[in-house]
């Protein structure tokens, strides 16, 4: 088991999702993908998830969805089928098997894609820019609706940003912010830094919040932790 744990730990960040993990378990145990021993694989899968929880790795909810699927298949396979009349009963594993095969197919395709002569990695086009005349010369246009959407969205974002900046003047003071933080953190005992910011915040909000936190840290009313560079900053209530 310890060897296995080591193995998993090394591969932690390698899995793209639950299907990827399942494929790994199948390959690693040399199982037949067309005839998956469902209780065995479920056990392995759950062991992995359990380990992730012990290691405090944040699991995407999709991992749990597939865990539920596995358990459901396992249950359905345990129900004895009245063999005569259930002629066309479907193998409960069929959908999962098909998904795994399909996913594996695209994993292969992705590798193949990556093997092709990629522009700016394996091959390069002319770097120098010819004096191509101005674009209004052209009579036709290369158009894509997404361009419109992106242009419009950035205009809207810009407009919204201006409005917020204008209102920033009447936002709250450092003292108010301190009260606010202590009130909220008093309930839950600990919070992430960004959770303290209003839903839509301006630069001024960040400044005010940081000043408030610094003050609280100085007064030893809060303790502050960060697990890794650029990671989430956690604030703890100092008992």
């Amino acid at each position: 088991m310890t060897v296995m744990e080591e193995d998993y730990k090394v591969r932690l960040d390698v899995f793209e999702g639950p299907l990827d993990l399942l494929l790994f378990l199948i390959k690693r145990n040399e199982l037949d993908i067309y005839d998956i021993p469902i209780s065995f694989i479920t056990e392995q899968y759950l062991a992995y998830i359990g380990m992730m929880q012990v290691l405090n790795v944040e699991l995407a909810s999709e991992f749990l969805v597939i865990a539920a699927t596995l358990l459901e298949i396992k249950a359905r396979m345990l129900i004895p089928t009245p063999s005569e009349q259930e002629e066309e009963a479907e193998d409960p594993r069929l959908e999962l098997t098909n998904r795994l095969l399909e996913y594996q197919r695209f994993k292969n395709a992705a590798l193949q894609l990556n093997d092709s002569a990629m522009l700016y990695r394996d091959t390069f086009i002319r770097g120098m820019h010819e004096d191509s005349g101005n674009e209004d010369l052209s009579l036709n246009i290369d158009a894509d609706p997404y361009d419109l959407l992106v242009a419009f969205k950035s205009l809207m974002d810009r407009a919204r940003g201006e409005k917020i900046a204008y209102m920033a003047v009447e936002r709250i003071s450092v003292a108010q912010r301190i009260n606010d933080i202590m009130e909220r953190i008093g309930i839950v005992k600990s919070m992430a830094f960004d959770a303290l910011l209003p839903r839509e915040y301006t630069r001024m909000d960040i400044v005010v919040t940081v000043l408030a936190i610094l003050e609280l840290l100085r007064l030893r009313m809060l303790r502050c932790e960060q697990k890794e560079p650029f990671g989430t900053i956690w604030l703890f209530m100092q008992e």
Partner: protein
Amino acid sequence: MEREKLIAIIEALIFASDRPLKVKYIDQVLSIIDTGDVRVEDLIGELRARYSTDSTGIELAEVADGWQLRTKPQLADWVKRLNIVKPSRLSTPALETLSIVAYRQPITHAEIDYVRGVDSGGVIKTLLDRRLIKIVGKKELPGRPLVYGTTQEFLELFGLKDIAALPSLQDIKQISAAEEELEKAQPELPLPTHETSDEE
């Protein structure tokens, strides 16, 4: 006009174009002169042959339904030593998502998520921003979800002539045969025993 002169013009046009140049635009440019019964495709073929010798560092590639001059892939390490271009890299999720879109287009966000088993929203956004995929319409389903397809830029990035030039999807084993077996096995519904199935 002589053949050699025409080839020179075509070479200049392809060189000057910042994107792969379609034959139809070459035809349009040349339409003001009488080219007799010379076909542009044939001239391009000759030009291509000229660039195919080992003593040239450039090749003429058919990309995104057009023609483009590119440095030869086997010289990539030398060109990279110049440090002039940002190297392009795609993450594994991006490559996975891109291949799903490429082979299954038009496809919705939900369908991509189903195949990958994880939410692909962030990756889709990145690929849209990099112009490797695009919105090609909306599906006639409740909520009218957007459907995605690949772009010209996708073809250019991977040096593909068109979407049909993608290699066909392959399994490790032959699926069709195996699926039949699965179907054959179904009616009996044997419980999954760990020691079974050592066929083939």
